[in-house]
């Protein structure tokens, strides 16, 4: 019993970690305050769910769940190229909401508010991921791959350039760098992994509806990347684990679900605000948002 619960928590940590790492690339490394990031998560989830329902093999569906959001990221980056900081945050919130409205109203595609039930568990080369333990292993593999790929990217010269663009875009332009292309690629990378997280989510919970992808669902993820420290993958790793575990501890000591939900949000909000005031670099970060 306990072990089933721990496996569940571990899977949730994996999904949130992939999502948080993807947002870290966007906000921490590229300096793009994309508050609409949940839209990529949701698009990935729906893509994966709908494709597998049409009989597409899960591995292909997973890849598509990563790739389709990249198109949206490209489209988003064009008009938002000139926006900075808070204006960018608000415009991307608007984007997130428009996608949410589409999920809610495009009934023929997404089944609207009813959502999509009965999403199949992944089948990889004939092997069915039928229980949670095997799903955990799958999630760990994907999370591990995500972390190592992102680590390679941020340590590469491109990663360096992405950070330079974040620090001073005009200076980067003056050094001959096409900053629009760089920011766009950064956003597309973050969209890809958000979509992957979305696929994992859809096939674990086996039911998705628009409410999981409302705009404000981004807040716990934002907490994770700021508390861990901006531009630190390691920080995101630790912060995500801690932030997922804290409410679970509360559940363990018997807090009823109706209180648990808001209590979790309150804790996240308080920690976020305290960190922003007293330790804006978070625990492992080197960067303060400009």
């Amino acid at each position, binding site marked *: 019993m306990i072990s089933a619960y721990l496996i569940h928590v571990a899977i949730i940590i994996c999904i949130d970690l992939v999502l948080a790492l993807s947002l870290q690339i966007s906000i921490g490394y590229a300096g793009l*305050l994309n508050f609409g990031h949940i839209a990529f998560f949701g698009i990935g989830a729906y893509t994966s769910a709908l494709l597998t329902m049409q009989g597409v093999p899960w591995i292909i569906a997973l890849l598509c769940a990563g790739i389709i959001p990249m198109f949206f990221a490209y489209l988003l980056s064009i*008009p*938002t190229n*000139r*926006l*900075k*900081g*808070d*204006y960018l*945050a*608000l*415009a991307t*919130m*608007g*984007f997130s*909401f*428009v996608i949410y*409205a*589409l999920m*809610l*109203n495009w009934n023929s595609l997404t089944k609207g508010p009813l959502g999509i039930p009965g999403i199949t568990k992944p089948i990889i080369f004939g092997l069915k991921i039928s229980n949670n333990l095997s799903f955990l292993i799958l999630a760990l593999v994907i999370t591990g791959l995500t972390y190592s790929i992102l680590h390679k990217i941020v340590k590469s010269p491109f990663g360096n350039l992405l950070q330079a663009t974040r620090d001073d*875009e*005009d200076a980067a332009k003056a050094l001959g760098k096409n900053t629009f292309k760089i920011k766009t690629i950064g956003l597309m990378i973050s969209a890809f992994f958000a979509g992957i997280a979305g696929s994992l989510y859809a096939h674990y919970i086996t039911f998705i509806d628009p409410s999981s992808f409302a*705009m*404000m669902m981004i*807040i716990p993820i*934002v*907490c994770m990347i*700021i508390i861990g420290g901006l531009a630190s993958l390691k920080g995101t790793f630790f912060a995500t684990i801690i932030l997922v575990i804290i409410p679970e501890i509360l559940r363990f000591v018997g807090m009823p679900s*109706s*209180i648990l*939900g*808001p*209590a979790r*949000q*309150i804790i*996240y*909000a*308080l920690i*976020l*605000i305290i960190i*922003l*005031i007293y330790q*804006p670099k978070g625990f492992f970060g080197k960067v*303060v*948002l*400009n």
Partner: protein
Amino acid sequence: MFMQLLANGLIAGAIYALIAAGFSLIYKTNKFVHFAHGSVIVAGGYLLYLFYSLIGINFWISVILTIISTALVGLLLNYIVYAKLRERKASPTIMLIASVGLLILIESLVLLIFSADAKTIGFLKVAKGISLFGAIITPLQIVIIITAILLLGFLLWLMKNSSLGKAMRAVSDDKNLSEVLGINTKKIYNYSFIIGSAIAGIAGILVALEQNLEPSMGSNLMIKGFTGAIIGGVSSVPGAILGAFLLGIVENFGIWFLPSGYKDAIAFGLLFIFLLFKPDGLLGIKKGIKK
């Protein structure tokens, strides 16, 4: 049909205008997006519910208590959180993120205390609609429009003619110069939150009377108000008011053409478009988006 849509647009616009005006006042003075303003509005609605529906205090006294309480809430947010961030020279982006955190905090507290089910406040609600110029409109809705117009007119007069209003505009234009000239900028920041949040309280009261109360309404209302402010020019209180009315009207005419489920998306779509192409709004002063 046209008159009905126009009436609906004005009613929605009136509420958005109250939201936008308070927000714009705070934004103009403090130079950051106080996103938590949305939750202050919601808190206002729930406080009225608390005083009037739960405790049973006389309606008008409840209204006054609510307005004072929401003004206090806004003041506390500034005093406890924003002032500290300002001391540490936090960027507007950090202030925005903190503000979103505060919105979540307040909404979660409301959810905790009052639970998620929708609340209604039975006052002026069950009244028949009157026919006016071809549109059906309830007495409450007329009250909303008139209250908004009177209040906002008073606010504009205050901003233009009172010494407080002038001081706020001075701080908004040039904080350092204002300090040199002897204006107590800390006090001005506090006043902007008191006044802006009091107006938010009134907006919350009207929303509570007109619709059902739900804890999560804050972000939605905030974005509507913010969009209105952006359309009209976020640094200009009269601009924000005008933009908000326009938003209400466009929204309601918009669902003539689009499925009604997309009503909210109209506001967000407009927000997106204006931020991209006309960030200074229709009337606004140049703020300057970085190239």
